[in-house]
């Protein structure tokens, strides 16, 4: 076993000793918030981990990387990467009882930058994540009407035909790109603020403020709904989905294993990044949440349970999503086929019902034989079920285009639409709680905020400030900015922070000390599995994933998809490269959190070095005098 521990003088002074920990709970009762009951804590953690990614990223990855075979790398990496990191964050939070900045500066003052990096990432991710919630709310508000507004195209001014952009693409595309986003054709073209999205954004930040106004005191109550409702809705959708025609096509498509995919490194890289990002590690929120626990809480069991729930939710959501996608693809396929059949029987005046899907090819041949000239003039669409199944099924495209289209084809569509968007709203909101926690608590630890200020004011100012910044996402080019942030703000910095976290706990704090702490808190030392994972396997995997991810991202050309009605291949999106100044933004967005780690370390080293000549004076002018009554005055 690797027994390397870096020298860390003064660690004992910065952290509570185990004896102090025993009595800490009465002392903290008035000053530090704590969970009302275990259920609140578990629901909050589960809610933070389970988010939009489980619903719209995992199913797509699963399907595109060999279906059922993808489960293998996913489950393996869940066990060797996700669970150990989760246990580590829970245990260190419960032991040191501070937010992320407090924890890392307790371990070693130089490491404060790790906490600051977590804070920046939580902030940046929170900004764009809440905008997505605003879009979900917009769709939710629009779901209370029949027929749904994205089920048909609006008419143009002359009332003679549908709006051209809509007729060429589809009603759902038009509703998303034009009536919701009113998207411009380039990120340069900012346009103006779209007032309807601004209203929804206001609502989203207000709801977030209501739920986080007093920290875990209020979020603890909110999670009873936001963490449980998605599961109820998913179950309802599962039942509804499985009874739709074509659902089995979708599920078969999802789970059919293609074992050759396992040989490709990109499959393992995607599985690793999905496990990592899905667990919401390195945001600092989980550390903060577990620091409110009682000292002897069994964090080992918690981490295993949360990991299992997270994995199960991903698979469950994937099944539900793909049953509905299978339904939509089958509907599309049937429509495509019907159009072809219609073309044939209209041209040859055959009675209806003579040509069906089964005898279509036979009839085609017969018609060709009867009248080749007329037959040659006909054009048939290619109907391929697989291509319908693999259409644009991840991210916002899944939720706002593909799924909404599927919903319009179900009976009682407004009900399904309302349920679906409430589920997305709850999933997003419960993840936002963790982000807010990951920003507010470090700000308090950094003493940037005066202690007198009540928590309501701090959260209020944070929400207000973030709200004003997110005006950017309500512009015509807002969606392009959001994709940019999504790709670069929440990826590389997190991987670096996670690696630093592991390294700090195992080698700076000392894994032996950590083991003793856990034995004190939980009752038994972590077994050999955890030891191997923490010391060797997980950091190695983190490093490999980070390097691979970094190489892939850096070598990729920076392009983005643009919705341009003037494009020849409209309604496909056009891929253009970003303008030059975007590179600067990317470097700032990804670089500032990463650089704050070494940056702060250097700053601390310089300060220590400058203070050293002054320290001698301190030693001289501190005599210890004995007083008459025996107290030692130092």
């Amino acid at each position: 076993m690797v027994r390397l521990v870096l020298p860390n003088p003064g660690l004992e002074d910065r952290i509570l000793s185990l004896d102090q920990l025993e009595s800490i709970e009465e002392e903290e009762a008035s000053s530090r918030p704590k969970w009302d009951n275990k259920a609140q804590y578990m629901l909050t953690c589960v809610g933070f981990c389970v988010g939009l990614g489980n619903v719209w990223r995992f199913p797509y990855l699963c399907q595109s990387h060999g279906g059922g075979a993808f489960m293998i790398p996913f489950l393996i990496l869940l066990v060797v990467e996700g669970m150990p990191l989760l246990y580590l964050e829970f245990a260190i939070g419960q032991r040191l009882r501070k937010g992320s900045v407090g924890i890392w500066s307790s371990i070693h003052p130089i490491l404060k930058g790790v906490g600051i990096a977590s804070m920046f990432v939580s902030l940046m991710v929170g900004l764009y994540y809440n905008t997505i919630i605003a879009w979900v709310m917009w769709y939710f508000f629009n779901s209370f009407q029949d027929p749904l507004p994205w089920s048909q195209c609006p008419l143009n001014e002359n009332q003679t035909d549908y709006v051209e952009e809509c007729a060429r693409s589809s009603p759902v595309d038009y509703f998303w790109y034009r009536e919701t986003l009113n998207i411009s054709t380039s990120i340069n073209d900012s346009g103006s603020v779209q007032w309807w999205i601004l209203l929804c954004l206001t609502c989203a930040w207000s709801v977030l403020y209501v739920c986080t106004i007093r920290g875990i005191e209020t979020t603890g109550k909110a999670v009873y709904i936001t963490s449980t409702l998605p599961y109820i809705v998913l179950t309802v959708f599962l039942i509804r989905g499985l009874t739709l025609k074509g659902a089995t096509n979708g599920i078969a498509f999802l789970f059919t294993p293609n074992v050759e995919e396992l040989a490709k490194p990109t499959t393992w890289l995607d599985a690793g990044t999905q496990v990592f990002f899905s667990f919401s590690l390195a945001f600092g929120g989980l550390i903060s949440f577990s620091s409110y626990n009682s000292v002897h809480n069994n964090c080992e069991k918690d981490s295993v349970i949360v990991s299992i729930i997270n994995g199960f939710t991903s698979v469950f959501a994937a099944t539900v999503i793909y049953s509905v996608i299978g339904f939509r693809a089958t509907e599309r396929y049937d429509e495509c086929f019907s159009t072809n059949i219609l073309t044939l029987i209209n041209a040859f005046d055959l009675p209806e019902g003579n040509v069906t899907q089964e005898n279509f090819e036979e009839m085609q041949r017969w018609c060709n034989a009867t009248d080749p000239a007329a037959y040659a003039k006909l054009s048939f669409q290619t109907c391929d079920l697989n291509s319908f199944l693999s259409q644009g099924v991840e991210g916002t495209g899944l939720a706002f285009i593909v799924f909404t289209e599927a919903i319009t084809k179900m009976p009682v569509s407004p009900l399904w639409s309302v349920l679906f968007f409430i589920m997305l709203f709850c999933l997003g909101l419960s993840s936002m709680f963790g982000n807010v926690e990951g920003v507010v608590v470090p700000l308090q630890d950094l003493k940037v905020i005066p202690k007198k200020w009540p928590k309501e004011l701090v959260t209020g100012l944070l929400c207000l400030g973030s709200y004003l910044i997110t005006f950017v996402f309500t512009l015509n080019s807002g969606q392009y900015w959001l994709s940019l942030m999504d790709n670069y703000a929440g990826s590389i910095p997190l991987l670096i922070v996670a690696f630093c976290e592991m390294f700090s706990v195992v080698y700076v704090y000392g894994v032996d000390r950590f083991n003793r702490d856990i034995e004190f808190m939980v009752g038994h030392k972590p077994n050999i599995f955890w030891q191997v994972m923490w010391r060797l396997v997980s950091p190695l995997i983190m490093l490999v994933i980070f390097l691979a991810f970094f190489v892939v991202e850096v070598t990729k050309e920076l392009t983005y998809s643009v919705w341009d009605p003037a494009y020849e291949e409209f309604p496909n999106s056009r891929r253009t490269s970003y303008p030059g100044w975007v590179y600067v933004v990317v470097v700032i967005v990804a670089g500032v959190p990463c650089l704050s780690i070494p940056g702060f370390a250097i700053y601390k080293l310089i300060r220590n070095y400058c203070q050293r000549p002054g320290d001698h004076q301190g030693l001289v002018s501190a005599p210890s005098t004995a007083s008459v009554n025996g107290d030692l005055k130092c």
Partner: protein
Amino acid sequence: MAKMFKGAENAFKVRLSIRTALGDKAYAWDTNEEYLFKAMVAFSMRKVANREKTEISHVLLCNVTQRVSFWFVVTDPSEKHTLPAVEVQEAIRMNRNRINNAFFLNDQTLEFLKIPSTLIPPTDPPVPIWIIIFGVIFCIVIVAIILLILSGIRQRRRKDKGPSEVDDTEDKCENTITIENGIPCDPLDTKGGHVNDAFMTEDERLTPL
């Protein structure tokens, strides 16, 4: 009659998809249904100015196929000329709904191949529904925020008053020092910097009379 259809610019092709529209309840297309169709077309023409005298016999059908599709023309009372296409088109468009309903079909299943269907604009409520829902939810949230802030302020005020009251009573307790013989019985006064009252002061060396 085939002569009429030679000048086919005034003829219209009609296509019905009865099975698609009605499924099992589909009726068979026979001469009676054709009679009804002629009646509907004649009815539509009678609504046009100057054509009030159109009779069913002026509507001619031809080329009825199994699909079901056929061509038709409308002749003038002399039965020598066909009516211009524009007039027929206008008449059919005006009464499209009535014609559709007579056959239990709609614009997609009863097609007049050269006549575009008038699209029904989606009904727009005066206030978009989404604003109503947004208004309701936003008001609830604002009320909740105000209530939470007010209760937080009240809690804090109560807490501030609470410890200060406790402090007062503690001070009072400290101030009740037992006094014996006029001398406070707190010899080892650890408040710091106090004179040790166990020793008599200069003034009290002599007991008072």
